[in-house]
């Protein structure tokens, strides 16, 4: 009886020892060197695997960062400057701080402002609808409202507003990963500089048609009148193809352009209500610019 026990122990430990030797040799032979910093970098990344940095997942980003000599090309939009600072510390490099950004929907063609003139029956996808035709409203640049951007967002930062049929960005959740920008077939969503208290001034229109056509299709479309360009004291507004664009970096949020816009295409978000004085002032600006004409 005891011999069975002894043989069993001996043979199993023999097998174990042999296997250990083989595994050890194999491990030596097929060893792959991996930079330990990759793990460290991955540790500090948010782990959302959103692809906002341009790499397929956080691990791939970490590998690329460790290999790279210069960090200026890399940016994790989700973690922001804080994360990039940590990454730079691990790699012993210095980085410049980047401006935080937020997604902005540049269309105000709600059901009321740009009523539908046709009905679309196809699959609920902006990509498919935009391939087929100009959309339900009269504006061939407008938001189609099928929510491709909502589907693309990994951070629950964008939702369709049932009342307007337009997507609505929750600034607090938005990480500026750019997934919605990519998903929008009409290039309506733009990443703009994030201002203090999430204040925003932007042209909520991308219609490049001439004024009369835009006006016909939508009540709040930019008609390219150029009043905002004249009134802007910082040269932040440019006019191209009958469409005004406010440079988010140059804009100092003075709100002068909002007051002069005849179609209310320029939106101000997050500001306290205007005091009466400011209103009068802006009106005088308006009359001045008229005088110039």
């Amino acid at each position, binding site marked *: 009886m005891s011999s069975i026990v002894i043989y069993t122990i001996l043979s199993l430990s023999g097998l174990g020892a042999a296997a250990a030797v083989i595994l050890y040799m194999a491990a030596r032979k097929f060893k792959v060197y991996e930079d330990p910093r990759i793990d460290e970098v991955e540790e500090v990344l948010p782990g959302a695997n959103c692809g906002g940095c341009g790499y397929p997942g956080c691990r791939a980003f970490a590998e690329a960062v460790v290999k790279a000599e210069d960090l200026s090309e890399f940016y994790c939009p989700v973690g922001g400057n804080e994360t990039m600072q940590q990454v730079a510390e691990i790699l012993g490099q210095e980085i410049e701080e980047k401006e935080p950004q937020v997604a902005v929907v540049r269309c105000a063609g709600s059901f009321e402002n740009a009523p539908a003139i046709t009905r679309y029956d196809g699959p609920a996808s902006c990509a498919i609808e935009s391939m087929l*035709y100009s959309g339900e409203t009269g504006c061939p640049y407008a938001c189609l409202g099928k929510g491709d951007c909502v589907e693309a967002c990994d951070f629950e930062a964008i939702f369709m507003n049932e009342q307007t049929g337009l997507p609505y960005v929750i600034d607090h959740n938005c990480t500026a990963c750019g997934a919605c920008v990519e998903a929008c077939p009409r290039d309506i969503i733009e990443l703009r500089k994030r201002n203090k208290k999430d204040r925003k001034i932007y042209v909520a229109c991308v219609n490049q048609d001439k004024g009369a056509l835009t006006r016909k299709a939508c009540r709040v479309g930019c008609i390219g009148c150029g009043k905002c360009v004249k009134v802007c004291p910082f040269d932040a507004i440019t006019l191209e193809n009958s469409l005004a664009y406010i440079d988010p970096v140059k804009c100092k949020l003075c709100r002068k352009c909002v007051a002069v816009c005849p179609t209310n295409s320029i939106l101000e978000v997050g500001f306290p209500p205007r005091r009466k004085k400011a209103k009068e002032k802006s009106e005088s600006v308006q009359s001045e610019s008229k005088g110039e004409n």
Partner: protein
Amino acid sequence: MKRAYRMNMLKTFTKGGVHPPENKLSGNKPIEKLGLPKQVSIPIAQHIGAPSTPVVNKKDKVKAGDIIAKSQGFVSSNIHASVSGTVSKVGEVMDTSGFRKPAVIINVEDDEWNDSIDTSSDIIRNISYSSQEIVDKILEAGIVGMGGATFPSHVKLSVPEGKKIDTLVINGVECEPYLTSDHRVMLERTEEMLIGVKLIKKALGVDRVLIGIERNKPDAVDHITNFVSEEEGMEVYPLKVKYPQGGEKQLIKALLDREVPSGGLPLDVGVVVHNVGTALAVYEALQKNKPLIERVVTVTGKSLSKPSNFMVRIGTPVKDLIEAAGGLPEDTGKIVSGGPMMGKALNSLDVPVVKGTSGILVIPEREAHRAEEFNCIRCGKCVDVCPMGLEPYLLKQLARLERYEECEENAIMDCMECGSCSFTCPARVPLLDYIRFGKTNVSQLIRNRKQK
């Protein structure tokens, strides 16, 4: 031929196909000349390939038949003024998709024609051109495939070296429900059309011509058979009624039992296919010196008071056609350019008739909308009916998941968008919408690969 008719051994293609209700409401309505509109808008891109460049300016006087836009490159086509008058502007006009596209807009004044055009109705039978002259003339006259694909015709007639063509197939199938423009051309312009066929035959240097016509047009079959009975090398075949027999690959399979390889052209099996409307345009271009400036358009619909076939100048707004056919019915739900299977819904009635407009279909509200979509039940009906032997349910799913490489492996580019799959699906899954989406992305993929 007569024998085949009697013995019920009608030819057709083998793979797939569906039988949508025919609804050929305007089949017995003779072609009427539509009055001139007040203004025409002639888009400069009415064909597949490079858009043409306008050669007229604002305030220029033009006569019908004058060239207004020159073709750019080999796969492109000339555009001619379809009316006489003054160019009001070189601007934009809405196309079928609702986007604005460049166009020449002409205010109509009188009806003067370019002096070189023979406007008499005499039929000129004598063919005095060499094959190269025929191709050059077709290029000059801006003729494109009139079946709807609008591929420039001279390209199809310029056979690349190393390819041998033995058969010319003339497509008189008109398998799309409702449409009757080809039917009327075959009945009323038979002789002219057949002279056009002879011209194409000469340009290609082939001996054999097969004319395929679906059996639902027995008058056209008989009529054309009488005309060609004495011609050598011309045969007329009545075909079983099945959609999409008018697709060139399906027609070749039906008539010659040859299969065009995946990604290939009819040229690869020694065949060239032309539509009967194109043949008529070729006749007019060569024998009458008249460029492609008008075409037959079917205006039809169940609630329309007067479904008709009109001879329409290119650039006429669609609303004029509907007005002439008895006005827009009250219960209109959708207006489609083309047939119900492959046509495109229109956004606006200001869209002009172009070279590829074979019909305008007014669909009543009760039939205009899609039924609610349910889950795919894997019945495989879409696979059964696909005339190209594809698997629509799979392609749809792959396209939806953006797996475009796999779409390409599964031959998505062979799809000709006939819509048989969506038509037959019992769960009303919008298969074709997704497949078309996949095709767009796969062709983008292929283009990117070529650039590298």
